[in-house]
């Protein structure tokens, strides 16, 4: 402990300036708390700096580039299209800067005091802040903890940002690589694999599990694999990665696939094997009486309170999917409770989107889960993109919308979409489930023509046995 550290007082201290932390700070301030926010690196956290935003900027541009070929065949002719990787990278960086500077302005307008440095608890209501040149202490009345997560490391693969890369290296990419090995077929691996493949890199994805993006519906996994294969992405599932070596300019990754051992050679290897909550010993959670669960997440109640009644925890460090919109939602619950309101974390649905080729979006229960929870009381209906007018106009025939509902009350339980613009479609499904809508509500709501959203009522009509734009023989009532 440093002698003579200066101790300040904070009404509400927020630790971490990612989506969770900054939005909690703004909301708490709006509701009358005086807020101090500590951030050790960059305001905006993973999401704005090295996550959601730059990844979607890269994905968007790669997608536009990739479709130029098919556009040429449709009459919008481009013959010598190419990527300028330097400019591309600047564009991605530009999106990040625009958003992070925006968030700084929002915090300023909300009169949130920003302290630079790394916080660690030294007691139940006190933290020490280590900045580059000094340390200080802050005593808080209440605290919202939002320290987020970091990439999981993989034994034998030390990220050197040259041959062994992390997700950030794949985002701000000033060169188009000849080829790339990605270890990890989770959503980040599949998103960035799709993006680099579209830019012209030969991508190989290695996944230990029997399938990529575990957890999504099997049909969606199949569609993803088919499309990725057609794009030239090699997906290897059920393989174990043992280690790597560099040979000249190349990396060689050693894998086993059952009994067989194999070497995969490439220009670089990216390690995208998940993320770990930032809860290491340095944070001093024990000093504050904050309990970590067996899932290595902070234990919280339905108002985001930890075992220390004056400390809330939100975002990637608490249970549930590590997604920015979950952090935003929890942030507001915590901030409102800290401001004395009766908020609660009781969302029925946390949607998930995969911005891959094609997009995937999910809300609510999967088919298997629904069937085991409600035996013999589940209705499933699908409608394919190829039968939707707008999809045909877009030349986007791959994909489908799948609805899962209770057979008796007809209430919607889950929606699963794979196909173009799934990300834009899914929020209607989230709202529908939150509001307790039925299949019939969807069918009777007028959706504008010609839009992709018409697939909702069309799928609902399939569930009713009255499909309009698709032939489902066995379902005719005649």
């Amino acid at each position, binding site marked *: 402990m440093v002698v003579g550290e200066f101790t300040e007082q904070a009404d509400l201290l927020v630790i971490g300036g990612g989506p969770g932390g900054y939005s909690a700070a703004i909301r708490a301030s709006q509701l009358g708390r005086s807020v101090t926010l500590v951030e050790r690196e960059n305001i905006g956290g993973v999401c704005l700096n090295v996550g959601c935003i730059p990844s979607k900027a890269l994905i968007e541009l790669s997608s536009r580039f990739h479709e130029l070929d098919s556009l040429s065949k449709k009459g919008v002719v481009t013959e010598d299209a190419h990527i300028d990787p330097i400019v591309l990278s600047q564009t991605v960086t530009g999106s990040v800067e625009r958003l992070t500077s925006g968030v700084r302005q929002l915090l300023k307008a909300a009169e949130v005091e920003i302290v630079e440095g790394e916080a660690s608890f030294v007691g139940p209501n006190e933290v020490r802040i280590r900045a580059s040149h000094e340390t200080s202490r802050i005593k808080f009345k209440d605290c919202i903890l939002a320290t987020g997560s970091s990439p999981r490391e993989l034994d034998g693969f030390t990220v050197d940002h040259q041959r062994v890369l992390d997700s950030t290296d794949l985002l701000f990419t000033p060169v188009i690589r000849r080829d790339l090995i990605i270890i990890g077929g989770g959503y980040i691996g599949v998103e960035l694999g799709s993006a680099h493949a579209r830019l012209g890199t030969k991508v190989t994805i290695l996944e230990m599990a029997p399938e990529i993006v575990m957890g999504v519906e099997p049909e969606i996994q199949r569609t993803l694999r088919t499309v990725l294969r057609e794009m030239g992405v090699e997906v290897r599932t059920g393989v174990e990665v043992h280690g790597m070596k560099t040979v000249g300019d190349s990396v060689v990754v050693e894998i086993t696939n059952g009994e067989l051992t194999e070497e995969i050679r490439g220009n670089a290897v990216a390690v995208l094997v998940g993320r770990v909550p930032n809860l290491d010993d340095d944070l001093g959670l024990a000093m504050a009486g904050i309990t970590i669960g067996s899932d290595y997440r902070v234990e919280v109640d339905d108002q985001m309170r930890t075992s220390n009644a004056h400390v809330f925890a939100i975002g990637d460090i608490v249970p549930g999917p590590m997604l920015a919109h979950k952090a935003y939602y929890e942030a507001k619950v915590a901030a409102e409770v800290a401001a004395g309101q009766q908020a609660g974390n*009781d969302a029925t*649905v946390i949607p998930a989107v995969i911005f891959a080729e094609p997009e995937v979006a999910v809300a609510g229960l999967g088919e298997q889960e629904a069937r085991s929870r409600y035996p013999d009381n589940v209705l499933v209906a699908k409608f394919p993109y190829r039968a939707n007018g707008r999809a045909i106009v877009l030349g986007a025939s791959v994909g489908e919308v799948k609805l899962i509902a209770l057979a008796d009350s007809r209430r919607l339980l889950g929606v699963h979409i794979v196909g173009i613009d799934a990300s834009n479609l899914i929020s209607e499904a989230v709202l529908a489930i*939150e509001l*307790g809508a039925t299949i019939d509500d969807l069918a009777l709501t007028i959706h504008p023509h010609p839009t992709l959203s018409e697939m909702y009522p069309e799928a609902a009509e399939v569930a009713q046995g009255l499909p309009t734009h698709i032939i489902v023989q066995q379902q005719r009532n005649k």
Partner: protein
Amino acid sequence: SSRERALATPAVRRLARELGLDINFVEGTGPDGRVLAEDLRRVASGGGQRVSAPTQDDFSEPG
């Protein structure tokens, strides 16, 4: 478990908390037994129906 938590929209769930009610103990008069804002206000002002046993269980499962 096939038991369900009370059917209600996000805003109604929030209102229940604000009124200090456990929504799972409030009888819903909406379609399918859905709990409406009016149901909560009625109970809160002492006039409405509370169900004796929770029809519901856990709040924890995300969708």
